[in-house]
């Protein structure tokens, strides 16, 4: 899979040149503005609100990149026919798919890492000068390491969404891929409800269908521990590990599926 790493680096470079990282500027401005504003309005609550807001923003910004860059990953190469000279090189189609995917993961990693640093920096400034006895009354410390758990799960969610986008973009147009990916994402938010479908409906066929869909569609709610972390409730490491395993399994299936679909495609 050596060729895949070159494709990944090229994909990363493309996202840099396409100014994907400009979103970080917006993120930083938002964060600073919010903390200045909230700091004025509320006493003591500001740290919690900033945590809440910044985690939500990390997730949202990442999601935009995962979906909108993800849907173009493969289809752009095919539509613009840059795939012709590329596949005449010693690069397997599967390596192209994996490389593209890893490239976007790298972009997301850098993005999320910078956001994380920005969040801790803002929290550090907010907590500075607050007397320790007041800080002790907070649900969680300002520079709570548990935030990293929430961020890690956000990253895993983004990686899964990217895999969904990649899967659709390996054989359909960007517009359709966007619709499908967004659809899967939204359904995936409520997926856990499908599991409890038998409580509302008694028809066995409908229950079986709901169960089937539950196992087929990703359960994105699993990745969301933002609220728990902000309120200082414990998030077990085992839960994070299990969710990571779930994500990896899901991603592996999607990437293999994308590679299989791509392998026999005619390029028009």
């Amino acid at each position, binding site marked *: 899979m050596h060729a895949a790493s070159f494709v990944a680096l090229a994909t990363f470079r*493309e996202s840099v040149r396409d100014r994907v990282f400009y979103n970080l500027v917006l993120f930083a401005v938002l964060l600073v503005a919010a903390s200045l504003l909230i700091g004025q309005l509320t006493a003591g609550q500001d740290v919690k609100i900033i945590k809440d807001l910044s985690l939500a923003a990390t997730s949202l910004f990442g999601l935009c990149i995962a979906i909108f860059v993800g849907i173009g990953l493969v289809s752009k190469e095919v539509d613009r026919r840059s795939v012709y*000279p590329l596949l005449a090189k*010693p690069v397997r189609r599967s390596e192209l798919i994996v490389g593209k995917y890893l490239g976007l993961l790298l972009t997301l990693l850098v993005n999320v890492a910078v956001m994380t640093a920005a969040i801790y920096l803002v929290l550090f400034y907010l907590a500075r000068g607050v007397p320790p006895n007041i800080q002790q009354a907070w649900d969680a410390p300002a520079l709570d390491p548990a935030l990293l758990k929430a961020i890690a799960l956000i990253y895993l969610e983004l990686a899964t969404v990217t895999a969904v986008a990649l899967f659709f973009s390996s054989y359909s147009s960007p517009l359709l891929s966007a619709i499908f990916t967004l659809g899967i994402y939204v359904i995936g938010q409520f997926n856990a409800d499908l599991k409890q479908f038998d409580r509302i409906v008694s028809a066995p066929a409908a229950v079986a269908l709901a169960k089937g869909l539950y196992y087929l569609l990703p359960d994105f709610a699993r990745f969301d521990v933002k609220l728990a972390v902000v309120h200082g409730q414990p998030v077990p490491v085992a839960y994070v590990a299990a969710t990571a395993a779930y994500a990896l399994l899901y991603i592996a299936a999607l990437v293999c599926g994308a590679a299989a679909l791509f392998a026999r495609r005619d390029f028009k």
Partner: protein
Amino acid sequence: MQAAIRTRDLTKDFAVGFWRKRPYRALDRLSIDVAPGDVFGFLGPNGAGKTTTLKLLMQLIFPSSGEAEILGRPAGDIAVRRRIGYLPENPYFYDHLTAEELLDYYGRLFRIAGGERGRRVSAILDRLGIGAERRLQLRRFSKGMLQRVGLAQALLNDPEVIFLDEPMSGLDPLGRRDVRNLILELRDQGRTIFFSSHILSDAEVLCSRVAILVKGQLAAQGTIADLQAFHVRGWELIVHGVEDSIVQRLRGRARRITRIEGARYAIELGTESRPEQILTELIADGASLVSLNPLRDTLEDLFVRRVAEVGEGARAEGGHARG
């Protein structure tokens, strides 16, 4: 000797039609052999299936039936891709990369080591006349410059077999001449070149062998000399030192007689007449021979005729189907 490129009954049907898909045969049982060291011209009018064939050879599309081999391995073989170069029709790369960065990327994919890669990239860009522009993003490149970048990337890995889909397209007259010289240079280095074109004069100058494809079918294949010898349309006899009265005796047997100047005449003879005999008669009358040449079809004549023949064939078939 193993063929550099070999196809057997290579066929491609595309599904066309928006609602009810029906197959459209873009390539029909193509069988060709290209020997190592050949410059092979793959000729045909628009829509003949040239690009389709090249895409099949690069495995960008898959055949409906038949097979294709390059250097003795099935098309698409990864190891073989190290040994070939491919210039797509109207090539497009990445807007955000410079010419240099693009070739560097491809060089990595070919596993050319660092220092060597840099040297090769700059040498090949020099060879194709891309100067300081090599540091510009490709979005700013004109069509002809992009075509040159396309040629550069096709030659980067020092390929044994080179596939060029309309290498001259988009180039100015100087560019065409450069590319022609480049192809001859590559030929002299012993590489095999397979190029598609509808510019016949290029093929006439460059190719050792040609194939003419019409509506997906192979209409003719062979060396240029073979294909032209097929159609000797007559002879042109040029003699000197004969009197007008003697020449006029030939009126009935010659297609055309033109006086060039003084006692020098050009006599055009049909295929049915025997030039040796007429020449003997003229020499007996005191004429001296300047030259005797067969009048051959140019590749263009051949091309036009074959295209027309296949067209008629198709019409005749259509008539049968209706009748």
